[in-house]
Structure formats: structure tokens, C-alpha cells
């Protein structure tokens, strides 16, 4: 009965409906679904291929950074101002510590011992077991790194990692800190040259690109590895001279102490012929090795400010940091005051508005068109009749107002533009501020000459110190406005010169003849009779210059007290100017050693001292005028073991006097003061022939307020000797204002005390 097959409607064989439904399933599951899946695959693999591939590659490739060595910053004599040394970052991989079953407590204690870090902190880091990178210490020096490496290798710890990094060193500490700037933790410049030349200095980091598995280790059989070599940064040779910079900072520091400067000081030393900046400083400064730390005074200001919240404290700290990082010579604008008369003078002479034969009358005040009240000269009595040179010497505001009006507003602004005072100088440092001047329509107003009047003696506009010294350098160097610069050469990592910068002449502003005339006049400002700039006098050098005292108007509105900026711009020598120095003493306080806060009493002596150090260093030979040499301190010759006669002869030849001879021997056995001591000429020397030196301590006498001659005599009474600094000039207004050893200090006989001489005449202490 089973023989027959597939009978219709046989319940035992598949019926039609079943076959239909199976066919339906076959079409759905065997064809339609696969077409859909194929379409989906086409979308993923063909259409979106690139997107997924790049995403996959990104996660599969791991990059290891090979840091490029940052370039060195040299001064112009190839002294290293900033350099990088390789150090290491120590980090741990908590995930690998867990994976390889390493003991986190052991690792934490080992690392905390070697690196001197907190155990608990490191231990806590090991607990983030999904992390592959957790920094333990940054910029670890070589010796410690070596110990960590030993610890890692001895105990076979894969979870402890060492990564190459580099650290920036500034061997001279605070020296030129504002010029150099500093680098952040990522080794990129944040300020100064480090920032400006960051691209050049930092080079290009190298990379190792590897295909890795998801755990960051190798990918078997796929030895894909690509190396991109690091290109080390280039080095730069700056125009900064370490020695000049040192002198500049030293004398600014002294000024800050002597004149009790509340807001620090700023200074620039520039090669007038090239525009190269030999020194640039701003006080208070900071140590770029540790740029986040503020000075003790700032710390004290913060702690006495009685802040309520941590946030306020941080704000104050940030303010102090910004303050100490600010390069005032570049980023701060101020009213230059009378220093600017150099520009007015040069403009007047060059434009023909005045000549050396022009004369002016100053009655103490002058009515100016557009002013309701008359304009006063700083000398209310008036300077009377004066020549152009005298107008400059006395810094007469009335005379310069007249010069300004003779020039005329339009021509005045033409020269200002030519001197580059409307534009930034383009010096290669970040953050240079721009100047602020009256708009043309105000300044050119024929019915109101008050703006022109004020501008001719340096008021009612603001410029930066770098603009001013650049413009004055043009007056000094024959009329050529130079572009100031700091980097003269770029070197590659092997020291080969890649590029070299030649001095850039922007334009000739005034004629060489005008320049020479200006130098002659400005020399008189320092060396002339009753001149205002006498304190900048340096024996043996023909110093030119101009004083300036500016008042910060905004400060008075804010604080209620006056704030002065006592400045001086000097250059030398007059016959062939080489170097210009601008110094700004900001906000002299009540504890100043000189009574009046003025450019002549504070700016001029500081510039004088700087020039006194810098000029000989730069190889400018002193040329003493008549009688000048006698005023110069002399070096004590060595006369010990010479016969008495020989000694006497030698001493007298050097301009010394033998005061007494102790003992009766034939030869000198000891001398007072010691050989090589530099002391005032004409000092009286004591010779010992056979007797022992008397070493009984003596109290230092008060030597202040005396002329140099009297101070020498007074010291001589106690067998002490003086040497002078400051204005070494014979004049009854030049008196000692400071002595290096305080009155009452016990000293040995023969001690040399340095006294500072300053012109305390009416003109030299005027606020002009």
C-alpha cells in the first residue's frame, strides 16, 4: 500500500500549501535576506570604506614622540643664555601593572623613595587600572632617572615607564629674563625670545609610529613601524651682551635701592649705529628657571592683602606673575617728558625752523593760543635770554614750545612719523605696545596750539621706551632710523650659520649735519655750566644726553599721590656715538638718597654709571680733557720691599702723597692702603719700614654731603681711603650722596670706601 507515491491530498506527503510556504521561505531566507546583507556590506566596505579604515588605523597606530632638542640662545659673544638638557618623564601604566600582576605597593614605595614623592599619591595612581599612562614625575634629571631605570630593570617592572623629555636651563638666572622669556611644561616658549622664535628654536619633534594591539604592545607579524627623525631646533645668537646686560641690571638694581623705586625700573642699551640691543632690562624681574615663583616682596604683598577666598588669592598671584613677566621697556607706554626735547631739537634744526644761532626768551611763562592759563616753565623765575644750546642745557619748556611753534604742527608730525614714533619699531620680541598721539585734526588745529606746545616738550602723548631710544639713536648716528633687533644670527644644530641679520636702515630722518649739531648741543646738557644732565658725566668720555621727568596722570587719579618716572637718555662719545642708554626710574619713594625725584638726579647718574662701565668694556678709550685726569682715581702701586726713596718716587709719580713713615728700616715692609687699590688721586699714603701694620679697628666716619676733596681728607684723618663714582667733576654743587660702608661700621685702617658723587645743583635736581 505504500508503493504509490505523492498521491494528491495525501496527508502524509507535503501538500501544496506547505510547498508554497517553503518556497516563500526559500525566497526570503535564501535570496532576499542575502541581497539585503550584500547591500549592507557594500555600503560598509565600499562606500564608507575610507571612513572606517582611517578610524581603525587611528586606533591601531600608536605614536611615540621623540622630542627635538630645543635650540640654544647665545649672547653676542656666544655665552649661553638659555639651553636645553635632556631629562626624563617618569610615568606608570596602571593597566600593565595589573595585567602583569606587578605589586602596586612595591612600585609606589620604590618610586616614592627614589623620587622623593608622596607614596600615597603614587599608590592612588596605580589604582586607575584602565589607564595606560599616568605621570609620576616630570623633567627628572639624569641621575635619578638612572636609579629609576635600575629599579625597573632589577625588578622587571613593565608598568614603570621612562620617557625622554627636555628641560630648559638659564645659566644666568634672572639675567635678561624679560628678553629671554621662558618655556612652559610642554617645552614651548611662552614669553620673550623663547616665544617669538619658538618655531625656530623648537624644531620638529620626531615620531615613531607603530601598529599595536589594543593593549598598546606589538602587533605580531605586522612589523609596521615608521620613524620620523626629530629635527633639532636652531640656535639663535642674540645682540645681547652678557656683560653689558649685567652692568645695566646692576645699576638699575642700585637705582631701585638708592631711589626707593616703588614700581621698579627699565633700561635699554642700544648700539646706535646698528639698532642692535645690547641690553634690555625691566625690574622687578624673575628667574626664567622658575618663572612661576614671585619675588618675596610680591609674596608679602599677597599675604598682607587679606584675601578671603582661594580664588582671590589665585587672582592676586596671577596679577603679580603678570607684573613680573612684563617687559616694561617694550610693553609699557609713557609720556617721555623732556627726553623728547632731543627729537624736537633735531626736528627744529633739520627743518630749518631754528638754527644754532637762534635765541629765545623765557620769562617763566608763556601764553599759548588755545590755552586758558599761561604755560609755565619748570623754572618759574624764567631762564631769561638763552641760546638754543642753553635751552637744551636748561631743558627750558618755554624755548621748546617756541621751537615747536616755529616747526608747525604738520611738519612736526611729519618728523614724528619719520622718526618711527607712530609705528611699532618691529623689534623681534612679542608684546610691543603702540604709541598714542593726538589725531591729526586735533593736532593741526590752527586755533589751538596747546597740543603742539605740550608735545614739543614730551607731554600729552605716550610712546614706548624702545621707540624713544630708537628715534634718539637716529639723532645720534647721523640721522638713520634703524630697526632695533635682538637676534643677529641663526645657527643650525651643528653651529653653522643658517642666516645672518644685517642692520636695517628704515630711512634717513635728519641730515648728518643736523645729527652732529645735536650731539654737540646734547653734550653740553651733560657737561655744560649749570646743565641739567650733569650727573651723567663720566670722566674721560664725552657723554651726550637729556633728562626727563614724566608724571603719570592716571596714577594720580587712581592713587591720589603723584607718580614720577625719572628718566635719562644718554649716548657717547659725542664725536662718534657708539652706544645709547635709556633708563626709567619709576615712582621714587620717600627713602630715596636724593631729595628730588627728577631725571637729572636719578636717571642721569644711573646712565652715567652704566656708561662708565660699558664704554671701556666696548673698547671706547677714555680721552681726558684738561685737568680731568687729576680727578680720576689712581691705582695704588706696589711699593713693599722697595727702598724708601724708590717708594716715595713711585708714589709721587702716581699722584700720591706720603703722609708718614712708620719705623726706621731702609726698605718698605708694608703699605697702607694695599697695592692695586683704586683710590682718589692725591690721597696720603702711610709706609711701614720694619714696623707691624696697625690693625686696630676704626669706626667709619660720616662722609655724606661732602665734596670729593673734603671726603678724601675726612677719610684720611682715620687712615681710610675713598674712591669715587658718579660725577667725578670739580664743582661745589657736586657732593657725596652715598657711601658704600655705613657710618659707624668698624673697619681696618686702609679700608677703601666708595662714595657716590652727585650734582645737587638746582638745575640737575629739577623735575625736568
Amino acid at each position, binding site marked *: *500500500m*505504500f*508503493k504509490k*507515491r505523492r498521491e494528491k491530498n495525501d*496527508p*502524509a*506527503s*507535503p*501538500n501544496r*500549501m*506547505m*510547498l508554497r*510556504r*517553503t*518556497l516563500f*521561505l*526559500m525566497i526570503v*531566507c*535564501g*535570496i532576499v*535576506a*542575502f541581497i*539585503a*546583507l*550584500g547591500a*549592507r*556590506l*557594500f555600503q*560598509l*566596505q*565600499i562606500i*564608507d*570604506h575610507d*571612513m*572606517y*579604515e582611517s*578610524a*581603525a*588605523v587611528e*586606533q*591601531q597606530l600608536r605614536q611615540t614622540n621623540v622630542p627635538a632638542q630645543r635650540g640654544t640662545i647665545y649672547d653676542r659673544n656666544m655665552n649661553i643664555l638659555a639651553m636645553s638638557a635632556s631629562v626624563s618623564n617618569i610615568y606608570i601604566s596602571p593597566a600593565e601593572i595589573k*595585567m602583569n600582576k606587578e605589586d602596586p605597593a612595591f612600585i609606589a614605595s620604590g618610586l616614592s623613595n627614589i623620587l622623593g614623592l608622596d607614596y600615597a599619591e603614587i599608590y592612588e595612581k596605580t589604582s586607575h587600572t584602565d589607564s595606560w599612562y599616568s605621570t609620576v614625575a616630570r623633567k627628572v634629571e639624569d641621575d635619578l632617572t638612572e636609579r629609576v631605570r635600575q629599579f625597573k630593570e632589577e625588578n622587571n617592572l613593565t608598568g614603570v615607564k621612562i620617557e625622554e623629555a627636555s628641560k630648559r636651563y638659564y645659566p644666568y638666572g634672572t639675567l635678561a629674563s624679560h628678553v629671554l622669556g621662558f618655556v612652559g611644561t610642554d617645552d614651548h616658549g611662552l614669553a620673550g625670545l623663547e616665544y617669538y622664535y619658538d618655531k625656530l628654536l623648537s624644531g620638529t619633534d620626531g615620531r615613531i609610529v607603530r*601598529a*599595536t*594591539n*589594543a*593593549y598598546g*604592545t606589538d*602587533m*605580531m*607579524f*605586522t612589523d609596521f613601524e615608521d620613524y620620523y627623525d626629530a629635527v633639532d631646533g636652531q640656535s639663535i645668537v642674540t645682540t645681547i651682551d652678557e656683560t653689558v646686560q649685567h652692568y645695566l641690571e646692576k645699576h638699575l638694581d642700585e637705582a631701585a635701592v638708592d631711589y626707593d623705586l616703588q614700581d621698579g625700573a627699565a633700561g635699554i642699551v642700544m648700539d646706535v649705529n646698528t639698532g642692535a640691543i645690547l641690553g634690555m632690562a625691566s625690574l622687578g624681574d624673575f628667574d626664567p628657571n622658575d618663572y612661576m615663583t614671585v619675588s618675596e616682596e610680591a609674596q608679602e604683598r599677597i599675604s598682607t592683602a587679606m584675601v578671603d577666598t582661594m580664588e582671590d588669592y589665585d587672582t592676586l598671584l596671577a596679577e603679580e606673575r603678570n607684573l613680573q613677566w612684563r617687559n616694561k621697556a617694550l610693553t609699557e607706554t609713557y609720556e617721555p617728558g623732556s627726553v623728547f626735547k632731543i627729537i624736537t631739537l633735531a626736528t627744529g634744526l633739520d627743518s630749518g625752523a631754528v638754527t644754532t644761532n637762534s635765541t629765545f626768551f623765557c620769562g617763566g611763562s608763556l601764553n599759548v593760543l588755545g590755552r586758558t592759563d599761561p604755560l609755565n616753565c619748570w623754572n618759574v623765575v624764567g631762564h631769561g635770554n638763552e641760546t638754543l644750546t642753553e635751552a637744551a642745557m636748561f631743558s627750558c619748556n618755554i624755548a621748546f614750545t617756541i621751537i615747536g611753534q616755529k616747526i608747525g604742527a604738520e611738519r612736526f608730525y611729519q618728523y614724528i612719523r619719520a622718526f618711527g614714533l607712530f609705528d611699532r619699531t618691529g623689534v623681534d620680541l612679542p608684546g610691543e605696545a603702540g604709541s598714542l598721539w593726538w589725531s591729526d585734526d586735533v593736532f593741526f588745529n590752527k586755533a589751538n596750539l596747546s597740543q603742539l606746545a605740550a608735545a614739543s616738550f614730551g607731554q600729552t602723548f605716550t610712546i614706548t621706551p624702545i621707540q624713544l631710544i630708537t628715534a634718539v639713536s637716529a639723532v645720534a648716528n647721523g640721522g638713520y632710523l634703524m630697526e632695533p633687533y635682538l637676534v643677529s644670527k641663526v645657527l643650525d644644530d651643528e653651529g653653522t650659520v643658517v642666516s645672518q641679520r644685517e642692520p636695517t636702515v628704515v630711512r634717513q630722518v635728519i641730515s648728518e649735519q643736523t645729527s652732529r649739531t645735536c650731539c654737540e648741543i646734547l653734550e653740553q646738557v651733560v657737561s655744560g655750566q649749570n646743565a641739567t644732565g650733569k650727573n651723567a658725566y663720566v670722566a674721560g668720555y664725552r657723554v651726550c644726553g637729556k633728562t626727563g621727568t614724566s608724571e603719570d596722570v592716571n596714577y594720580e587719579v587712581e592713587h591720589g599721590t603723584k607718580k614720577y618716572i625719572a628718566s635719562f637718555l644718554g649716548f657717547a662719545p659725542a664725536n662718534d656715538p657708539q652706544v645709547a642708554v635709556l633708563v626709567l626710574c619709576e615712582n621714587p619713594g620717600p627713602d630715596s638718597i636724593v631729595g628730588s625725584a627728577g631725571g637729572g638726579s636719578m636717571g642721569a647718574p644711573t646712565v652715567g654709571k652704566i656708561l662708565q662701565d660699558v664704554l671701556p668694556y666696548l673698547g671706547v678709550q677714555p680721552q681726558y680733557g684738561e685737568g680731568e685726569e687729576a680727578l680720576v682715581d689712581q691705582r695704588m702701586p706696589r711699593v713693599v720691599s722697595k727702598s724708601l726713596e724708590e717708594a716715595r718716587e713711585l708714589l709721587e709719580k702716581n699722584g700720591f702723597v706720603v703722609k708718614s713713615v712708620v719705623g726706621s728700616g731702609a726698605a718698605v715692609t708694608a703699605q697702607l692702603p694695599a697695592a692695586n687699590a683704586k683710590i682718589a688721586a692725591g690721597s696720603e699714603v702711610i709706609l711701614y719700614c720694619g714696623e707691624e701694620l696697625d690693625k686696630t679697628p676704626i669706626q667709619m666716619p660720616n662722609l655724606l654731603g661732602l665734596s670729593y676733596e673734603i671726603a678724601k681728607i675726612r677719610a684720611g684723618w682715620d687712615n681710610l681711603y675713598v674712591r669715587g663714582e658718579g660725577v667725578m667733576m670739580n664743582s661745589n654743587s657736586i657732593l657725596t650722596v652715598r657711601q658704600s660702608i655705613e657710618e659707624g661700621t668698624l673697619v681696618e685702617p686702609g679700608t677703601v670706601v666708595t662714595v657716590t658723587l652727585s650734582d645737587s645743583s638746582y638745575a640737575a635736581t629739577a623735575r625736568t
Partner: protein
Amino acid sequence: MSSKVEEMFMYDDTRLADYTYDNSIDRGTVDIPFALLTLVLLTVGVIMVLSASFARAYYDPNNTTGGNATYYFVRQALFALCGVGVMFVCSRFPMGFYRHISGIVMLVSLAMLVLVLVPGIGEKVNNARRWINLGFTTFQPSEIAKIGVIMYFSALICAPKNKLTGSIKGLLRYVIVLGAVCGLLVLEPHMSAIIIILVIGLVMLFLGGLPLRWFIGGAVAGGSLLGIGYALFPYVRNRFTAWLNPFADASGTGYQIVQSLYSIGSGGLLGLGLGNSRQKYLYLPEEHNDFIFSVVCEELGFIGAMLILVLFALLIIRGYWLAMHARDRYSAMVGAGITTHLAMQVILNVAVCTNSIPCTGISLPLFSYGGTALLLQMAELGIILSLSRDIPEKR
């Protein structure tokens, strides 16, 4: 054992006047295309297990292989050899035998689904008890339950008194058995097995002649169940959001999918070449298991992946073709059921890998690593080969 249960599962229908038990005709040879397709796919699958697994086996992040790169491959290859033997053996048994033991297989499946829930017998992995450890190997009772449902439903439908006319009473025993299986799977829990078994059960009822209106009603019920699940269980919701935008949480819930898409996408047209997958280096999870197809796509490209899909499609079409040409109704039902099971696994697995449906753990037949699952698949295919032997040659 109560008489009800006996009636349900331990029936003796060997004396039924049915073609399934007709042993008067000699059985022919197995269907060569189907057998060949199976062997080709199995071979490719084992090779892909080697390629996909050696990175994980070598790095051994879970401390199972001892760093032996061929750990998974060797085991899979051995099981594949056994699997071929099992397929051969299964093709030798007459279809009447299968029909006769259908109820017992179902009963054994249910028993094991209960056993797996017993702590100590069932192994708990990732908060689910799905595995029974036999000492030398582990297996999932749900795999047996799939065959159980196919065989048992086929047998029931072929029993003369069980016409699927659409009466609720007639449906009741199917619903009870399916409900029991799914209920036990919920307790494990094992979502993907529930889906597959439900689909298989419905397909069996569909083939058995259940009127279409039931399916429309069933679709509505299923849809609302899904909606309720979506509303009630954050776990389900997460699956859906991860499906819709896996990149939103590429390192969390979307990780598997994102890695799978990276693998498939970076394969491109021609792929990175056999053995050159980069994603298998511990980026792609389950790379030799549920996501082995992603490695296939990455290494063999669109061309290679499509070739394998075409082979699967041919195997499935051939399976249905054999079912349609089966000598008897039981064979047709079992053949279509097993083929549907195969098709579901393949389609759902590839759909998950390509993020075409929400992620759920479904293995790819003949490819995914897993010994007992492979043996059972080979057994199922062996049953199809067995029924193919009863198809009379064309005259």
C-alpha cells in the same frame, strides 16, 4: 511519568501508515551539492578560526590558552573532523528513526534546560547560566532545544490528529512547549536563543499550515512585547540606543559594534589578505566567535565576504529545495526547519556584525568557534542529508 506527558512525547507512531516509515525503497546517495557546500564552508570556517583567533590565543588576556597561538584552531579542527563523522552518521539513520525519537529529543532538551539552571551543573558566565560542563567539553542546552523544537513540531504536525486548523485547542500544545522552552531560557537568560527558537517554532507552524491570520495576530503581539520590553528594561533600551548610534559611546556600550564596523569597513573591496586582520589584535571582541564574520570581511574584503554569503545562500536554497522534494511530510518539515535554523543564524549573525539589527550574541554556523555547537550543526545538516537520500532520482 504521567500519561499526559507520555501521550505528548513518548508516543509510538511507527505503525502509522506514513511514508516516513516506508523502508521498502532503497535509500539513494546523499545530496552531493549540499554535502559539498557544507564541507567547503566548514573548511573555510576552520581556516578563519585559525586566522581570527591566533592573536587572542597568543596574547591570552584571559589566561585560557597559555599563549598557544593555535589553541583555538586545533580544537576547532578536531571538532570539525568529528563533525564530519557526525554528519555522516546522521545521514545514515533513516528519517523514520528521527521521527520516532522526536518527542524524546524534546523531552531531553527540556530536562537539560532545567538542569542548566541548577547551580553546580550550569556554569555561570557573565551573569547567565547557559553552559553545562561535561568535564571534557561544555555545551549549551539551548542548541539541542532548537533541534528539539524542529523535530518535535514536525512530528506533531505530521500526526494525523493534529491538524493545524486554527483552533486554539489545536495550538495549545505547541504554545505550551514553546512557552516552556522560552520560559526556561528567560531564566538563564539567553535572549538570542529565545529569538531563534521562537522564529523556528513560528516557521514550523507556518509550514504546518497554520492560517496566516494567526501570524498577523502574532506579529502584533510580538511587536507590542518588544515595545513593553523596550519600555521596562533599560538593558533592552541600551541595546537599541547602541544600535542606532554606536559611536555615541564607542568605548562603552557601542564598543563591540564600533570595532566590528571598523573591521568590516577597513576590509574594502579586496580585504587586507588572509591572516592580515589588524582588528583581531584584541580590538575586536569575540573575533573568533560571534564576530568572526567581521574578520572575514576585513581579511577577504567585499569580494570574499560576498563569496561566503553566496555559498551560505546556496546551501540554504539547496536545503529548502531538498525539503520541498522530500518524500514525506515529516522530512519536508524537518528539512525546512533545519534550513530555516541555519538561515536564521547566518542572517542574524551577519546582520549583527554589520549593525543592521541590535547587537545580540548569535554565532555563525560552521565558522564560529565552539565545539559542541559545531557538532550539533553538523548533526542537523546530517539529518538533511539523510532526508535527501529518500528523494527519488529523476526519471
